[in-house]
């Protein structure tokens, strides 16, 4: 009986290491892969362009911007010609690609290389494979996004001559975690697709399709759905109902959730993501929220996004556990 206990304990000890071995290999794979270099390059160029434009715009108005405390964060939220979007919109648009690229061949790649039976015949639990891969992908994503934020901050300090305040740094840190969770959703979706699709090309197409539809045609799509659910007849009440429905429907999309969350987290002047009527803002005093208050505003967005990411990973996990080893 004692040997059995010892055996089990040893097994338990080794078990802890299984997903780490998988994750360690995957992180090394990702960092050495061509796609890492390409993605880092694309993100770097897009960010640099956005930040240079934004910082130029901020410099122009800086002399009359005495009262603005969170000047530094404007780097992320301000848009100036000729760059069409502020940085957070860029991240919202491009970051899903990171998740998709590090997730789409998680299982289908093992299958096409013929390594899956060999991997699963090692003394590790099956869930350690998918967990290790997910953690590895997200680690690399975290490294990239952190590097991106530091890069932007560096340019910002250099161009604006403004050092971020502790509040701004903590806002950025919270936003970074939020962005990683957002990318996690896309990575989980891509991982699920890689379990279901037999070929790597197919498994890349599914999440890329979802990504394109939600980012490019999202607003059109949600507007159409909202129009069916609560039709507009020209009256103010109907219009408000329509806008409310539209808002609710669009919050089913992680893209919307991320944009709303980001705009509040990175801009202390944004007080709501919901519908505001003119009466409500009339004579409202412009004041800044502190981080806790901002978090309170976007708590629903954060919670829903975390839930969506968890559910998506759970689906990928279940699909993988039920998957037949034989192709």
């Amino acid at each position, binding site marked *: 009986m004692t040997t059995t206990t010892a055996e089990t304990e040893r097994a338990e000890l080794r078990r802890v290491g299984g997903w780490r071995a998988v994750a360690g290999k995957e992180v090394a794979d990702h960092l050495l892969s061509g796609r890492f270099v390409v993605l880092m390059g694309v993100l770097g160029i897009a960010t640099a362009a956005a930040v240079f434009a934004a910082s130029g715009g901020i410099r122009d108005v800086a002399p009359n911007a005495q009262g603005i405390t969170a000047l530094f964060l404007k780097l992320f939220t301000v848009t100036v010609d000729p760059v069409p979007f502020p940085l957070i919109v860029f991240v919202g648009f491009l970051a899903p690609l990171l998740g998709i690229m590090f997730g789409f061949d998680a299982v289908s790649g093992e299958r096409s290389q*013929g390594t899956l039976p060999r991997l699963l015949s090692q003394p590790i639990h099956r869930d350690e494979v998918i967990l290790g891969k997910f953690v590895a992908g997200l680690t690399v994503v975290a490294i990239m996004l952190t590097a991106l934020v530091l890069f932007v901050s560096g340019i910002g300090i250099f161009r604006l001559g403004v050092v971020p305040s502790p509040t701004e740094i903590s806002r950025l840190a919270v936003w970074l975690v939020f962005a990683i969770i957002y990318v996690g959703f896309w990575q989980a979706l891509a991982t699920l697709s890689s379990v279901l699709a037999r070929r790597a090309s197919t498994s890349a197409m599914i999440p890329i399709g979802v990504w394109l539809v939600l980012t490019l045609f999202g607003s059109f799509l949600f507007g159409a759905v909202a129009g069916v659910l609560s039709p507009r007849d020209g009256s103010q009440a109907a219009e408000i109902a329509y806008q409310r429905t539209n808002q609710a429907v669009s919050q089913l999309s992680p893209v919307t959730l991320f944009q709303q969350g980001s705009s509040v987290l990175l801009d202390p002047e944004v007080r709501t993501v919901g519908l505001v009527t003119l009466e409500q803002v009339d004579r409202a005093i412009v004041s800044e929220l502190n981080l806790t208050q901002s978090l309170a505003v976007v708590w629903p967005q954060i919670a829903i996004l975390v839930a969506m990411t968890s559910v998506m990973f759970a689906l990928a996990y279940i699909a993988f556990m039920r998957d037949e080893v034989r192709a």
Partner: protein
Amino acid sequence: MSTTIRSKGLTKAYGEHTVVDRLDLEIEAGEVFGLLGPNGAGKTTTILMLLGLVQPTNGTIKVLGLDPRRNPLEVKRHVGYLPDAVGFYDSMTGRQNLRFTARLNGLDDFEGQIESLLDLVGLADAADQAAGEYSRGMKQRLGVADALVKGPSVLILDEPTTAIDPEGVIEMLALIQRLAKEEGVTVLLASHLLHQVQAVCDRVAIFVDGKVVAQGTPHDLAAVEETAKVRVEFRLGGDPSKARDLLNSMPNVSDVEAGRVPGSWVAGLEAGSLPTAVSGLVSRGADVIGVHRLDEDLETIYRRYFEVREEVSP
């Protein structure tokens, strides 16, 4: 401890389709056991069930006294597996692939072990080359090293020789035998290649459509073979109809039919009567151009085996 792998009534069905049908296996420690059957006979499914990677529909399995369904990790810790069409991470070198396997097994000090395994399978020179550049045969040899990294007491090899050149096959078979005899490793070898299985296995089970149709030492199975009929292709010159009549008139020759090319005839012969038949044909003035036994492929042997079974069983 004498029985290493034991299955009773092992069955796997996908819907209506039964892939493995009430399989009883008993493999002794230190023996080389051959699972011989055509592709699609259920060999790989059986192996995956032994490893706990596929859940059986019915029946029991014990590997090293453990139930792979209840305790797959402990089974996999002691069983080395070389899958059919084994693959490696293309961007990693052969050595890095083996290191990864060692880490997954929770091993600490594995560099020396890996070095000697690479040496053993003859890949020491290619060890630091990307596995993507390996030929199929090299991958298969790396696969054997990979299965041995954990220092297994049971080795399961699924079609280990398919992509290896003839010389490599001889080396591989010698290696398998050495592992069994010197290291006391129990080997389960699944293959559709009769001669290779015959050459190394202590015992063989012939596995067709999910069922074991014969089990025993190669010698026993060969004895069954001897009583069977042999299909022989004769190539005879001269007038075709005359040649056919001549064949039909021979004793021990039956079922004469036209072969694939003009002038060739396929006939059934009693085993061992081939020399008599040929000398008989020659003495009767037949122009014998060629004689070819058609029993080289496994299918013919299976068919022959079934004919015998039908004759024996009432």
